């Protein structure tokens, strides 16, 4: 039995709920047991670190303290989100590297009756545990419906293999863990040099011109290399490539259609699960056509909202494009 403490992170029951659903569906075949940290809080994403130091690290460390109290035969915390994984790993690492930080964070935690000794826990990402603990052989042995004929671009994202405080990954810029796992599922993995390039992170919300260019590179390259879809290990990557692809297309006047699914969704399909159990269909750039390459049929969902009958509706301001960009952001 493979037992771990589990830190889901906020997006797993909202924007990345398909990730949680598909993970739940593959737990049993993999004999994987995830015990959720009781009453965990948000890790602050990339936002809190840019405001102040001790509060940001105390927020993260509360989770480490709770997890350490809950240790029961395992000292490994698994996070499915790359940003959560990095924040937890970062707090653990820097509390050791800068003992003064560790002391202050512990002083803050003490106000809530908690404490954390850095190094107590092992912080790892879900795919790390699947590839290195459970192993590709076991994963391969559970495949009943190989993904033969599906061409995928393995998109690892940036915050997972970097900065890599514990040297967990095969490479910082071109790691092969995701490639190997997808190959074990029978998929055809294309060469994807941008695998650890950034999706733009929070820039989709605060600096769309920067984010759209980063997204365009990722999507255009996957498209040119003939991928049917991108596959990701991070809720933020999925959200940016999926939800902002329409706006990105409009911005550049392009017409890309590049679905992006979580690797657990493909694992579920290869294990013979139904698309509906895996949250397939909740992506905004539909993966339906891509999945016909492996004979998977996704039921057609109702399109949101009725089509407007007349072309002329309410007067609307002009849409955001690269020609109008930048005119409202500068204050």
């Amino acid at each position, binding site marked *: 039995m493979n037992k771990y403490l589990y830190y889901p992170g906020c997006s797993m029951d909202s924007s990345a709920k398909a990730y949680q659903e598909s993970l739940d569906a593959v737990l049993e075949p993999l004999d994987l047991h995830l015990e959720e940290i009781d009453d965990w809080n948000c890790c602050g994403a990339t936002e809190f670190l840019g405001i102040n130091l001790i509060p940001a690290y105390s927020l993260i460390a509360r989770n480490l303290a709770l997890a350490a109290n809950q240790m029961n035969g395992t000292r490994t915390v698994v996070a499915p989100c790359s940003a959560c994984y990095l924040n937890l790993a970062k707090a653990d690492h820097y509390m050791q590297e800068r003992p003064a930080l560790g002391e202050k964070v512990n002083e*803050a935690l003490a106000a809530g009756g908690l404490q954390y000794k850095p190094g107590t826990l092992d912080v790892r990402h879900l795919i790390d545990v699947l590839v290195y603990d459970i192993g590709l052989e076991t994963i391969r042995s559970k495949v009943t419906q190989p993904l033969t004929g599906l061409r995928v671009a393995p998109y690892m994202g940036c915050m997972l293999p970097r900065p890599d405080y514990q040297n967990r990954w095969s490479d910082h810029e071109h790691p092969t863990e995701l490639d190997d796992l997808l190959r074990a599922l029978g998929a055809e993995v294309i060469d994807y040099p941008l695998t650890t390039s950034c999706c733009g992170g929070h820039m989709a919300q605060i600096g769309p011109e920067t984010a759209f260019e980063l997204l365009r590179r990722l999507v255009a390259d996957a498209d040119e290399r003939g991928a049917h879809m991108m596959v990701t290990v991070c809720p933020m990557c999925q959200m940016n490539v999926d939800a902002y692809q329409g706006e990105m297309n409009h911005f550049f006047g392009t017409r890309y259609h590049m679905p992006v699914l979580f690797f657990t969704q493909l694992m579920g399909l290869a294990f013979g699960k139904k698309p509906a159990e895996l949250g397939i269909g909740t992506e905004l750039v539909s993966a339906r056509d891509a999945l016909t390459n492996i004979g998977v049929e996704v039921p057609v969902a109702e399109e949101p*909202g009725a089509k407007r009958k007349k072309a002329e509706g309410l007067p609307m*301001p002009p*849409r955001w494009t690269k020609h109008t960009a930048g005119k409202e952001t500068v204050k």
Partner: protein
Amino acid sequence: MPHMTDERVRAGITHEEDLSLLNEVSMKTAGVSRLEMCIQCGTCGGSCPAAIDMDHTPRMLFAMLRAGMRQEVLRSNTPWICVSCYHCVVRCPQQVHIADVMYTLKGMASKAKLYRSSTAPDFSKTFVDMVKRFGRGYELGLVALHYLKHFPLRLPGMMPMGLGMVTKGRMPFVPHKIKHMDQLRKIMKRAKELELNS
């Protein structure tokens, strides 16, 4: 300015070296920043996917820190454009914690109110306010507040996306609140006091 020695004046040096800004940034950075180790090689800027949108590449910014150019550094958009992808961090031959230094500079610029666009600091603040209130992130509240204030013109184009997210159940209306908010509040209150005293 401290008194210049005759020797320095003869050598044509106009400024006394003042590393107080560099030291301050180092002190305020989470780990051991290694900022003073920068050899100005430029690997950071060359590795950066967003450098094209930056006022200064990280290398330039670090030279400015060393030169004590406080106003110019804190006014630079560079830390706000940084996407935290850590390409520069793993390539830096001197292991400078570049991304963490960027976080520190954002915090300093916010406190000094020296940023030029309020979009990014507001987003961070709104995000953190939600977390302080609920203990968890609240995407719907965050995007609604943020887009109305900063990107009203993007809203019509974003309607299909927003509607899709809501109808597909990916953006719940109600935030999730943690059980022990009182505990989290106490921790955050103490942390803030400790921050001010450091």
